[in-house]
């Protein structure tokens, strides 16, 4: 699906959304090289197994705070991150375990962060909502809905300022598109022609509020038009389509130095966070979407295309489970931060300063 540089359809109506909100057949985006396809499946599997385990660890009180799982959204995560080069930047939300993993952060360090240990990628300061890995250019995990858009745009400004060809990809939710920063940031990014790809993860809900109950325009790919940002849409349940559309958007932004908005249509299989009775949606709706679970669907597709066989699929799953086991072991063994470290990293302390910071 090529990016549309200009609007061509009317503003979405609730009816239309319900259409886009109901599962669609996987589109026909071509498969990549076998090795690449296999790696996508491996990463999607790792994210799935990692988050299932994180959920268990939360139930066992090994993990605290909020835990927002992206189970069901793995194709969106892998399809988008695989559209980036090593030097591109990634910014996501509080629903960020999968993005860190896809970007290459060791599962050990992500799990240790969930456990609040020194071995965690943020030394236990951030937790589930605030993952970060400077080496992988994964620029965070942000807990404030809509707060990450300006930050991502500032990173893109730095790339532009240094005249590099780096692109920043910023993900946020359908609910976040109603936050003031959305309009402010898209306008500014378009005005300054900054290399940022905005990816709105339309998982149909902002917490318990369904898309048509929180956004007057539900055809989210068009929500940037009035701000000078052209939009497009991908099937977020299909890793190949997601990758094709977002890769095209990334390269277009790299070349044109103009932001683009991509709507990834997907679904969150689990509750918003671990504390969510899910009374706002029907079991049937969830079941319909689960039929399109990106993991088995893509696995079966690769098997059908002869890219892998049944044994490979088992292997890939076993490897993922083993890796997650090791991650839990590492987290368990990693110590808690020492009490003395409480005040570390609040400030960069500087010789020149005599006064008291605290």
């Amino acid at each position, binding site marked *: 699906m090529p990016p549309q540089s200009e609007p061509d359809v009317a503003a979405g109506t609730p009816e239309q959304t319900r259409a886009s909100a109901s599962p669609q057949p996987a589109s026909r985006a071509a498969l990549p090289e076998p090795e690449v396809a296999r790696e996508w499946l491996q990463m999607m599997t790792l994210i799935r197994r990692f988050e299932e385990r994180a959920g268990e660890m939360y139930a066992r009180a090994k993990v*605290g*705070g*909020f835990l927002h799982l992206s189970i069901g959204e793995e194709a969106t995560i892998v399809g988008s991150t695989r559209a980036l080069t090593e030097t591109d930047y990634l910014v996501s939300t509080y629903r960020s375990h999968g993005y860190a993993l896809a970007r290459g952060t060791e599962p050990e360090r992500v799990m240790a*962060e969930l456990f*609040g*240990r020194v071995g965690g990628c*943020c030394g*236990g*300061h*951030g*937790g*589930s*909502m*605030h993952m970060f890995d400077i080496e992988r250019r994964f620029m965070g995990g*942000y*807990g*404030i*809905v*809509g*707060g990450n858009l300006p930050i991502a745009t500032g990173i893109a400004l730095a790339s532009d300022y240094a005249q590099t060809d780096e692109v920043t990809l910023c993900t946020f939710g359908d*609910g*976040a598109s*109603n*936050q*003031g920063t959305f309009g402010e940031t898209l306008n500014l990014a378009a005005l300054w022609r900054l290399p940022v790809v905005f990816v709105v993860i339309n998982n149909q809900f*902002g*917490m*318990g*509020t369904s898309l048509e*109950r*929180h*956004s007057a325009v539900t055809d989210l790919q068009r929500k940037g038009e009035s701000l000078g940002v052209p939009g497009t849409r991908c099937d977020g349940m299909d890793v190949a389509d997601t990758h094709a559309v977002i890769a095209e958007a990334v390269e277009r932004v790299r070349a044109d130095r103009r932001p683009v908005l991509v709507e990834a249509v997907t679904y969150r299989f689990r509750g918003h966070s671990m504390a969510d009775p899910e*009374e*706002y949606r029907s079991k049937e709706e969830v079941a319909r979407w689960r039929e399109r679970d990106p993991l088995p669907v893509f696995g079966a597709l690769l098997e059908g295309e002869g890219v892998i066989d049944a044994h490979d699929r088992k292997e890939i799953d076993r490897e993922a489970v083993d890796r997650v086991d090791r991650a839990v072991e590492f987290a368990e063994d990693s110590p*808690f*931060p020492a*009490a003395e*470290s*409480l*005040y570390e990293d*609040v400030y960069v302390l500087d010789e020149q300063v005599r006064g008291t910071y*605290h």
Partner: protein
Amino acid sequence: MAELRYREALNAALREELERDERVLLMGEDIGVFGGAFKVTDGLLEEFGERRVRDTPISENTIVGIGVGAAMSGLRPVVELMTVNFALLAFDQIVNSAAHIRYMFGGQVTVPLTIRMPQGAGHQLGPTHSHCLEAMFLHVPGLLVAVPATPADAKGLLKTAIRDENPVIFIEHESLYGMKGEVDDDKEATVDFGHARIAREGADVTIVGISRMALTAERAAETLAKEHGVEAEVIDPRTLRPLDLATILTSVQKTNRCVIVEEGWPHGGVGANFAALIAEHAFDDLDAPVARVSGADVPMPYSKPLEDIAFPHEPQIVEAALATLGQRPAAIPGAR
């Protein structure tokens, strides 16, 4: 009287005021279909319908601004901000609009708006989700600030807030929602603003606890009595604006020592404000400087052991109280 949880007491107050006054309506993120992130508004949508219980998009500044406009035109909106952390997005409408409009327009309108929000640490929500900002709200003339610590006060103060003609910042505590207590079920019973609650009487030292810290202070007082033979008077101001300074001063005149306990950051905190007020009004009654026990001067860390030492618990309060009695080295604010 009935035994209710803090959450249920708030829910009852909202229900009763919705029944009592057609001008009352609720607005907030996920307060309807979801029943509220902390289930405070559970069942109210079903009972009062979409006209009076409104789910909003995630747009904090605008939600508060709409509440201001609605209040200016005769309604009595109760806006829920899912947590105090997100109120930072609405500070413009809270200060420049809600707090100042009546004065700015020469008294032509009132802004009977209640803005509810829970705050507090203890759930490992990390730096962006654990703020206590009562000191910032307290700073702003035009606002009233309520900080209920018990189910009874949660209900009684919320009803007063909704009926008051001024904009009220109503600060709940995330850790108290499940707490049970006796609550007056008389629909006309309210708790006045500006009336402190003396939670415990004592003659040796006055301990003023804000929000949840009033309860922690009560427990610390028991320890002081049992283990140190020190009788502490524990005061819960209930509202920071208006402030029942008289009750605090009367107590300090009796005990000659005072400890202020708050969960928020120490610099420019509520404790500093009270310490200054008490010194100004009762300097000669003080045998020791007013002591402050507060949250640590750091963003709230996620990791459990760090979070635990980043906000006050009984031991710090006990130490601080003993210090005012010369039985310990003076404490410096900031939990550790």
